[in-house]
């Protein structure tokens, strides 16, 4: 026989190369997956097996491993010890089984992943089998029983084959056949359990009836899903830490550039604040503020690669996002975990032998959602007289009739007096484009699988000169090249181009939008240098800058190339011991170009030469991870243990070059003057040892402990290492026998954990390794030739070197101790789910720059020390109701997070850290202050006490400006500031705390529903009880000198208009009414309809016939973001981030506001 010859040859070859007589080679087919398995799919799995004269049970055991299935049989009925030979090479399982079992008179039936073996002639219901399958131990003898027959169907009434039917507490069971029918012998009082992967288990007590019809519900509950945790996965039901998962579907509901923006409102305890124009990362904080000096950015781990941010990442590639919130979950990432960890897992192909193509596209329009009432030209004229007149200042020359009635430029028909520019309309852009296109192709078989995608995203700003564009490409694949080895890789490549707002400092473009005179036009076509018009300082009596001009003419761009790739090799040493070796690269090339051409508006802007300023930042981060995972059950005991060695090093190069051009024709440094160049290089390295053990007993008692030992190059020798341990326990009460009677409770788990995490202050989210302290904070370097002295008048004669630091070799991570308790409750088969968490976290060694006396000669440079402490306590609640039955299915999920922050101590008692002061926004006094006993960066200033109504009133009140003559500085109509210490004068010591930017609570509510082919989602997101320091209102209604203002100033106090809260208008603001006070502190609470989406999916049947099977899925939807915002806040947008300076969150300096947008999109599957 030809066939036999082939096998013989094969055997011969194996013998030749010295393998043992019994050789098994294999290529594993499907791993256990969460998707339902059909009997045919199991039988179609291909295996390789060569066995000679081995016991049947041994061969069955081998097949069960190769095909990832289980055999169910009775070793008494099956000749398990008979020796047989099998030769199969890339054969379907069914063929192999036929060849093996037919001679033995055994037939089989597939039930899910189980294959039930029966002796011919045996009745299915009589089967007594051994669940373990491969041990061959004798099973219980048959007992006297009633024969029960029945049918199992799914929720649509379709028969379910392969459903396991088991008598609870015994090893007796069977499986349904292709028609969903089963027969089993059971005693009355026993409980039958019907289970199959993908459906919820149903238990039925055997009573008098002998016929059962069972309907199984598909299991959409999250409780059985697999959750990605650091360095592994775990079943949600056995989790003991605070871990939240967000699905790909949820992430992609919002048309936003990045994953972190998409996470807003999706996870309790995760606070996302949008902060700036397109392409700018939002501020992400998990469970509050853990540091005074450093950002709240969590650690992002993308496919196992710890990295600093998610910029330039395409959320369409994401399979799931897990947020590790508490220390017991996050401590596995040790020194980088205090701010929480966000694990991103990208998509993989399915092993179904088919290629899937998905196209996802939307296009939309964004517009500003709010305008502020500003003065028009007539109102401005009126206001100018009120303001300047009060201070005895004459009408600015421009506004005198002779000039005001001049044409706005030579040849124009319109005069200044006739001009009425709405600078908000001029600066903001309506119907700005937002679009995303993504196409993905994925597929796979038992050997290889892949997912590849290409994406394009573009978002124009709702203001001039702002945009973000990204193109990206991904390929993920893995290949099993033997039973033991699997090789895989993830590669992501993206190019980004952001046009950003280049104005530094707090004077944002919106400040100039408010301040620009309405009588000036935006453009001056007669101006050859730029084409814009600007105010003339003395002529106009005010000197704002035209906000449109620099936004349009200046070009500030950041071009980014990012490559993130990992490759890994899995070695399955045995069923229970796996080794994975990972190598990865994260490469970022950021090229920041600032180009300011020559232009001149004849007024406040006059650039006489073009400025070119280029900076290239190169980050190369290499990751090297070795991981050993042990996973085995011993009876009711299940142990998973993981050991990891990891090494991650980063190189950072920075190069700057700048110069000037005398023309606008050349935008490069080619031939430029004043060329200056510089470069620096930095390195850091983190070496980690990680160990974790999780243990559960009978799925009831759960325990987990981990330790990570991190060594970081940035600390001094001898202080580079630190240990970050954690431990947690869980109790699944619903698994206890005493809970069986509580039918309503489908899930009840209590969890508690404690752990230590660190923070090494990732730099602006660029690299996870780097610290804001630089890479060498302990190492005092000499500034070689960084100064000079021109001996004899020659610049090169005296190169000078110096140092100006004191090292603190004891400096180390800010470490946080965190305690977390949580409870998970599921009612009525998890229709209603509830998760509650309470946490306390305390950081004892926050790094502050402790000032040195200037007599040290270091120019006052401080020494960083671990000297302050802070705590965050909070509560989180997440609840959901899931209506999964019937044609109208809906799902509602809400969450609430409450966090309280308190600084416990600073470097010395009574120390304070003031921030945010700016002459433009309240005269320069700080707007926030950080002291022990208060939330970090609480708003700070004076309290107001109404308005002085008369000179007598002024005389009675405290002196408003200590040291001045109140008769000169204060008058009726001025604000009366409160004299907190009662010394009769208003001084710095009368300042007090005015609230915190931290909300009392944040919440969100998501409702989604499907009816037939329609789907609907509405998402509410809100924050409550926070304050915003509306510094921009100082510009809008502060009236300190002449600029355009909000219409509120028309309601200024006058002797005839006394019932107002706006003080008198007087240029120069002699009473300093603008000083930081509760006048500017507003309630920042808001509730937003973040997203509303309505979709329609063309029915599959119609689609198939329509497209002749080419298109498998077609969904079209419309959606709107930020459709409605309910708030009392007076500024453009209550969602206020920071101008990226320290301790200034929640101060509104006129930041870029959120847009309202509308999209239409399609999702097509081929």
């Amino acid at each position, binding site marked *: 026989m030809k066939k036999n010859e082939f096998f013989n040859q094969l055997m011969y070859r194996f013998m030749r190369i010295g393998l*043992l007589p*019994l050789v*098994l080679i294999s290529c594993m087919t499907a791993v256990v997956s969460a998707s339902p398995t059909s009997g045919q799919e199991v039988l179609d799995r291909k295996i390789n097996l060569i066995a000679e004269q081995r016991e049947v049970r041994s061969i069955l055991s081998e097949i069960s491993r190769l095909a990832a299935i289980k055999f169910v049989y009775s070793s008494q009925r099956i000749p398990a010890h008979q020796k047989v030979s099998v030769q199969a090479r890339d054969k379907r399982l069914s063929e192999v089984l036929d060849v093996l079992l037919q001679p033995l008179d055994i037939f089989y039936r597939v039930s899910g992943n189980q294959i039930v073996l029966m002796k011919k002639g045996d009745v299915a219901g009589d089967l007594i089998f051994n669940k373990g399958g491969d041990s061959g131990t004798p099973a219980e003898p048959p007992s006297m029983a009633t024969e029960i027959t029945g049918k199992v169907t799914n929720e649509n009434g379709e028969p379910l084959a392969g459903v396991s039917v088991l008598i609870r507490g015994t090893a007796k069971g069977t499986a349904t056949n292709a028609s969903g029918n089963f027969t089993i012998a059971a005693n009355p009082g026993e409980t039958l359990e019907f289970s199959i992967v993908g459906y919820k288990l149903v238990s039925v007590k055997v009573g008098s009836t002998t016929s059962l019809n069972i309907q199984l519900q598909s299991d959409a509950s999250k409780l059985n899903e697999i959750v990605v945790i650091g360095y592994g996965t775990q079943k949600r039901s056995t989790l003991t830490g605070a871990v939240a998962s967000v699905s790909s579907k949820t992430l992609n509901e919002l048309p936003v550039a990045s994953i972190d923006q998409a996470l807003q409102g999706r996870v309790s305890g995760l606070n996302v604040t949008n902060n700036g124009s397109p392409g700018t990362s939002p501020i992400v904080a998990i469970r509050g503020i853990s540091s005074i000096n450093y950002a709240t950015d969590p650690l992002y781990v993308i496919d196992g690669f710890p990295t600093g941010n998610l910029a330039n990442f395409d959320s369409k590639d994401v399979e799931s996002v897990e947020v590790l919130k508490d220390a017991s979950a996050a401590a596995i990432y040790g020194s980088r975990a205090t701010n929480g960890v966000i694990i991103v897992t990208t998509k993989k192909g399915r092993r179904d032998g088919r290629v899937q193509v998905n196209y996802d596209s939307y296009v939309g329009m964004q517009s500003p959602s709010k305008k502020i009432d500003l003065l028009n030209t007539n109102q401005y004229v009126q206001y100018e007289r009120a303001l300047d007149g009060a201070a005895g200042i004459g009408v600015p020359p421009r506004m005198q009739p002779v000039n005001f009635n001049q044409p706005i430029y030579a040849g124009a028909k319109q005069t200044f007096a006739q001009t009425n520019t709405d600078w908000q309309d001029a600066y903001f852009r309506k119907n700005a484009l937002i679009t995303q296109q993504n196409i993905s192709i994925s597929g796979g078989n038992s050997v290889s699988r892949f997912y590849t995608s290409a994406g394009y995203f573009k978002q124009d700003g709702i203001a001039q000169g702002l945009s973000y564009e990204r193109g990206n490409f991904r390929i993920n694949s893995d290949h099993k090249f033997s039973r*033991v080895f699997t090789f895989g890789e993830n590669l992501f490549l993206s190019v980004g181009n952001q046009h950003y707002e280049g104005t530094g400092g707090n004077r944002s473009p919106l400040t100039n939008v408010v301040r620009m005179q309405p009588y000036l036009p935006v453009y001056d076509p007669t101006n050859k240098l730029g084409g814009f018009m600007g105010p003339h300082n003395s002529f106009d009596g005010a000197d704002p800058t035209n906000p449109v001009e620099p936004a349009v003419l200046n070009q500030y761009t950041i071009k980014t190339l990012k490559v993130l790739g990992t490759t890994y090799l899995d070695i399955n*040493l*045995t069923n229970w011991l796996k*080794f994975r070796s990972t190598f990865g690269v994260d490469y970022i090339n950021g090229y920041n170009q600032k180009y300011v051409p020559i232009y001149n508006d004849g007024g406040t802007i006059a650039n006489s030469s073009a400025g070119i300023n280029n900076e290239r930042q190169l980050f190369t981060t290499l990751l090297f991870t*070795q991981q050993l995972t042990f996973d085995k059950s011993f009876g009711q005991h299940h142990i998973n243990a993981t050991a990891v*060695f990891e090494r991650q090093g980063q190189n950072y190069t920075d190069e700057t070059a700048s110069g000037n051009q005398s023309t606008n024709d050349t935008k490069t440094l080619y031939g430029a003057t*004043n060329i200056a160049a510089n470069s*620096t290089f*930095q*390195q*850091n*390295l983190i*070496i980690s*040892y990680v160990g974790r053990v999780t243990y559960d007993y009978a799925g009831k008692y759960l325990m987990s402990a981990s330790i990570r030992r991190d*060594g*970081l*190059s*940035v600390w001094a*020798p001898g202080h*580079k290492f630190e240990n970050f341990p954690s431990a947690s326990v869980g109790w699944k009460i619903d698994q206890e026998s005493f809970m069986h009677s509580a039918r309503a409770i489908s899930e009840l788990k209590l969890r508690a954990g404690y752990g230590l995490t660190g923070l090494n202050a990732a730099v602006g989210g660029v690299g996870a390794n780097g610290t804001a302290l630089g*890479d060498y904070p302990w*190492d*005092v*370097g*000499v500034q*070689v*030739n*960084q*100064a*000079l*002295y*021109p*001996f*004899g*008048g*020659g*610049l090169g004669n*005296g*190169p*000078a*070197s*110096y*140092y*100006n630091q*004191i090292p603190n070799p004891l400096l180390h991570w800010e470490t946080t101790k965190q305690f977390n308790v949580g409870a998970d409750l599921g009612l009525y088969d998890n229709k209603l789910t509830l998760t509650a968490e309470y946490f306390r976290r305390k950081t004892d060694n926050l790094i502050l720059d402790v*000032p*040195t*006396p*200037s*007599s*040290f*000669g*270091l*120019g*006052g*440079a401080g020494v960083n*020390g671990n000297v302050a402490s802070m705590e965050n306590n909070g509560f989180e609640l997440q609840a959901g109701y899931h209506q999964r039955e019937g044609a109208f299915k809906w799902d509602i999920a809400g969450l609430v997070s409450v966090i309280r922050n308190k600084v416990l101590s600073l470097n010395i008692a009574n120390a304070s850290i003031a921030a945010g002061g700016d002459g433009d926004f309240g005269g320069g006094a700080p707007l926030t202050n950080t002291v022990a006993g208060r939330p970090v960066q609480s708003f700070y200033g004076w309290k107001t006490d109404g308005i002085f109504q008369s000179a007598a009133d002024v005389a009675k009140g405290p002196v408003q400006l200590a040291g001045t003559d109140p008769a000169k500085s204060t008058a009726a109509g001025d604000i009366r500031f409160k004299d907190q210490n009662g010394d009769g004068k208003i001084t710095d010591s009368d300042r007090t705390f005015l609230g915190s930017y931290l909300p009392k609570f944040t919440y969100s509510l998501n409702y989604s529903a499907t009816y037939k082919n329609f789907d609907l989602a509405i998402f509410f997101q809100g924050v409550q009880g926070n304050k915003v320091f509306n510094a921009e209102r100082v510009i809008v209604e502060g009236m300190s000198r002449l600029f355009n203002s909000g219409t509120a100033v028309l309601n200024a106090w006058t002797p005839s208009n006394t019932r107002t809260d706006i003080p008198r208008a007087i240029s120069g603001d002699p009473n300093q009414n603008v000083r930081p006070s509760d006048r500017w502190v507003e309630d920042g609470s808001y509730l937003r309809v973040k997203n509303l989406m309505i979709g329609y999916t063309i029915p599959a049947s119609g689609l198939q016939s329509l497209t002749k099977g080419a298109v498998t899925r077609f969904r079209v939807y419309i959606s709107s973001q930020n459709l409605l915002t309910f708030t009392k806040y007076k500024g453009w947008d209550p969602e206020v981030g920071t101008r990226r300076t320290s301790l200034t969150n929640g101060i509104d300096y006129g930041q870029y506001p959120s847009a309202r947008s509308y999209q239409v999109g399609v999702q097509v599957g081929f």
Partner: protein
Amino acid sequence: MLFDKKYLGLIGTGMAITILTVISCEKDLNKTDPNAPEVPAYFTNSAAILAATNSVYSAMHSQPLVAREWFFIHDMRSDQVASGGGQLGADRAQILNGASDPSNDIITPQWAALYTMIHRANTVLDFSPNGKDNAALTARNVGEAKFLRAWAYNELVSMWGPVPIYTTTVKTQNDFQPRAKEADVYKQIVQDLQDAAAALPEKSAYGGSDLGRATRSAANALLGRVYMQTGDYASAKAAFLKIPTSGADGYSLTNRYLDNFEEETEFNNESIFEVVFVDKGDNNFNWGGDNVGDGPSADQSTVRNQEYCPVAWRNLIPSNVFLNEFENTATGAPKTDPRFSFTFYQTGDVYNQGKSTLTDGDQNGNSSVVNGVTKKVSWRKWMLMYKEKSSFHPGGNNQRLIRYAEILLDLAECEAELGSPAAVVTGYLNQVRARPDVAMPPYPTTQFPCVTKNDLIKAIMHERSVELGIEEVRNIDIIRWRKKGYFTTDPLSYFRANRDELLPIPQMEIDNNPKLDAGGISKQNPGY
């Protein structure tokens, strides 16, 4: 299972390799800054010590010191200046009007910058044993460092009285030093200057690219000044007499008075020590930011021309007292002192190489009263408008710190205090008056009879005032003479005893130096 055992060896080998990698890996954690070498690794040779020495000079000519705030504070603590008008900043006006407070942000950076010089000088001294590869150069650098450190301590003790003494670099953040007694500070200064005088060469030893470095004569001159301030006139005289007056290293008066204040005549025979500035031609000034405004391409100009210039900011103008100090035929002098017109510009003067004439309108701000006549008078010394017309130009004119004319006047004062014959005293004074383009009649004159010691002191006080006006010595003179009771009314109109002798200790120092008063001297000066 057999299968797995087969691989076990492989895995074992792999793990062994991993463990070895891991162990060798930990060494990789030892990283140092590739941009900035570690302190002990860098200061290992004479070249590094030279660079460290240069950095002391660099700090000295920074914005908070000689390029700007140093002359402001000295001048505003004297009776020779008045406010040019409302444009004088509030913090400067505070000092001028005697309203300084501990957080004044002119005073605070000056204190810090002087200590920066001290820290940098201490760096040179700490690491000087490593300069054996060029022992001669290192020895000179040690001398320079000590000279500069002494200069800084002299500034500190003159302005703030008892101050902390650091003679070595601070190693840990707790190396606080308390305020030391004035006598101890002077002792330290004297020691440094004696060491410097011994170690430093005279000027002929320096080539053109080293002009501006401290010399033995500079050390002796400063030593003499310091002795005078402590009342030890004999030692002062001895120190001054060590300054050679002939030969390659000799100093003498220039024929032209203004040679001491113009850019073309820097490093002349009269100049004993000057601070070097260079104009890069970009019209920029290093406004600083951090402490002393370092930077490899930082601007090297001084802003003095901008601050005082009649046609620029004109922040300070001459005081009426000072304008009227000059001998004038209108007030009975035999000759009007030519130094009046060398020191001041007034309306009608020509400038810009004779091409422009100064008007009242050119001079922004306040007017003065000279001999009963109200007019606009402005500073001329150090200004660049003699050769240009510019409303903004920081400039690169070197600041002469010590010149030979002052030594002559110092010697006159020493002799007078030591009771030497009047002729000896007037002999020194008359050398200064006899400068060719000054040519004032010799003492005694009708106005200055120079008979008694009192007469002589009056002549010395007058002569120092008109010769060294606005050269940042007047306020030091006032401190010295005030102690001796030479003033019937204090030259400072606002003067309050037990307060205005000294400036307030900066609040920053008080807040951050817990040991400031550990030596028994309270943290703040009296009256603040």
